[in-house]
């Protein structure tokens, strides 16, 4: 069960009061519907204003909530059938990046994404969404396979960052991510990426050079997690909330900056409140976008992909 965050506590308290009142009414056969309606109205107001005025840090917290649909949940909800494929053919199968092939509305597709756990036990097995080089190399293999058979690729991004362990360094975390960037830049098939939760650093970008990029409403995407940014900038990782505010990392920020092509609305309070509705929205977006991209000749698509990334970033030029 998802637990509420600090800023959601007043909502939970009010919900508790309403439940109490209901059971009190039932037990005692009293009609307090006027009272109840008032409380329910207050709850609606409070819920609405809480989620309509989220700070960047609150969004970061929501993006990390357990209970949000994971990549495998999206796959299950989007594909009519799906075959998960394993291994990088060099070293291992990284459970943190999952991928495979399937059919969506009868059309073939390759899906690759970071996989977080749905509980603590699974999270440990999935390394909390922090992939190893073999995960990126599995992704590379599946991308090339998709290109060979002309299947579009949909990437789901949800990682705090690539794994920063010794073994990852020994096996070439850098080059594994770098080679994916090079591959995605020229992959001759339509590609979409969707940031479903956390878009942390190069570990996110390693699945993220695509023709279209979308973000869920409460997702974040930046160069580094806000706590780590705070640790570097101000030598204090507890200043994560402050860093989140200045980093411009929310979906609305990225849309504004021209990095993402669209924001996918979440159920109020987050995807974990109504996973089914969330998966359905993502399915609709994927289908509409793949239909659109498939109509564009591949060389045009690649030229557009080049120019999109070519133009990212602002600088000054004096003659």
């Amino acid at each position: 069960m998802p637990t509420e965050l600090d800023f959601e506590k007043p909502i939970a308290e009010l919900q508790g009061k309403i439940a109490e009142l209901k059971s009190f009414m039932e037990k005692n056969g009293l009609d307090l519907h006027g009272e109840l309606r008032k409380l329910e109205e207050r709850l609606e107001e409070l819920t609405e204003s809480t989620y309509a005025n989220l700070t960047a840090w609150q969004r970061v917290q929501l993006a990390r909530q357990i209970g949000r649909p994971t990549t495998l949940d999206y796959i299950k909800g989007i594909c009519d059938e799906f075959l998960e494929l394993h291994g990088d053919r060099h070293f291992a199968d990284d459970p943190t990046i999952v991928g495979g092939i399937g059919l969506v509305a009868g059309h073939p597709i390759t899906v690759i994404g970071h996989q977080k756990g749905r509980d603590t036990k699974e999270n440990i097995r999935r390394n909390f969404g922090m992939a190893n080089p073999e995960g990126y190399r599995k992704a590379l293999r599946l991308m090339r396979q998709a290109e060979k058979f002309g299947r579009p690729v949909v990437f789901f991004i949800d990682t705090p960052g690539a794994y920063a362990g010794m073994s990852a360094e020994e096996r070439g975390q850098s080059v594994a991510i770098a080679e994916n960037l090079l591959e995605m830049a020229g992959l001759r098939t339509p590609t979409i990426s969707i940031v479903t939760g956390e878009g942390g650093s190069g570990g996110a970008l390693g699945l993220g050079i695509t023709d279209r990029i979308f973000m869920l409403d409460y997702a974040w995407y930046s160069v580094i997690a806000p706590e780590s940014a705070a640790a570097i900038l101000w030598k204090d990782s507890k200043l994560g909330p402050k860093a989140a505010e200045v980093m411009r990392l929310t979906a609305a920020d990225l849309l504004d900056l021209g990095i993402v092509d669209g924001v996918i609305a979440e159920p109020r309070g987050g995807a974990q409140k109504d996973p089914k509705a969330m998966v359905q929205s993502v399915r609709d977006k994927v289908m509409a976008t793949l239909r659109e991209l498939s109509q564009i000749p591949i060389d045009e698509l690649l030229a557009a992909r080049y120019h999109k990334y070519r133009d990212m970033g602002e600088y000054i030029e004096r003659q």
Partner: protein
Amino acid sequence: MLKDLFYRRRQYATLGTAAEPKPVQKPPEVVERDVPKGLVQKCEACGNLLMAKELQKHVYTCPECNFHFRVDARTRVELTLDAGTFIELDAGITSTNPLGFPEYESKLAKAQSATGMAEGALTGKGEIDGMPVLMAVMDPGFMMGSMGAAVGEKLTRAMERACVERKPLILFTASGGARMQEAILSLMQMAKTSVALRRMHDSGVLFVSVITHPTTGGVSASFASLGDIIIAEPGAMFGFAGRRVVEQTMRQKLPDDFQTAEFNLKHGMVDKVVHRKQMRDALAAIVRIHTARGWADAD
């Protein structure tokens, strides 16, 4: 020793259209320059005291222990290209503060006055052993060599120019990674340089990345690791996450050589570790091999 590394026979060294093989050029005389840190410098590794003149003579390496001192971007160009051939390009590109990030402008101004550079990368064209190349150098002293949009743009232009002019690009990396003050926009410079590199790759133009100390983070996880040939300077730190971050993750002390050039060579991440004294010849050999006439044009 160099002969073992880069064996070559002069008579086969064809330089494009040049009919006469050029005489072997000596590394260019290092131009006399002010050494701001005084007349004597201490080697960080062995404590050896070195006169500024001596340090220059040894191309800023320690003759006792081979420690490689940090050199700025302009010195690097002088050490690498034929004397007087370098022409700087896109010198007018500098950073702005697109996200309104606190204290970014003052940090930029400080870096500019400390390094005398407008931005963290120096790009241009020149010749190495008489062969034309494009060259880019990241300056480790400019905001820790971090990559923002200005650095990304300069490097991208160098890559695009390499494609158009069909000249090799030699890129010396030194970077703490993407520049935090530009947040997502700096992360996207990894993507931007990668799409440009992809074009180089597809047009068969040579890209050599030379890893200097330190090369980590977003730079390490993009173009630094994408050289057709990757050379590293001895002792240069090269890795994805910084040493301290990895130590925190592992909760253990790491071996001394962790993430050094030599460690990377052992794990197959770089092609060669080349001493600074031999770097110029090594790069010239690489360029020569890639500009030689093919077998279809054999006599």
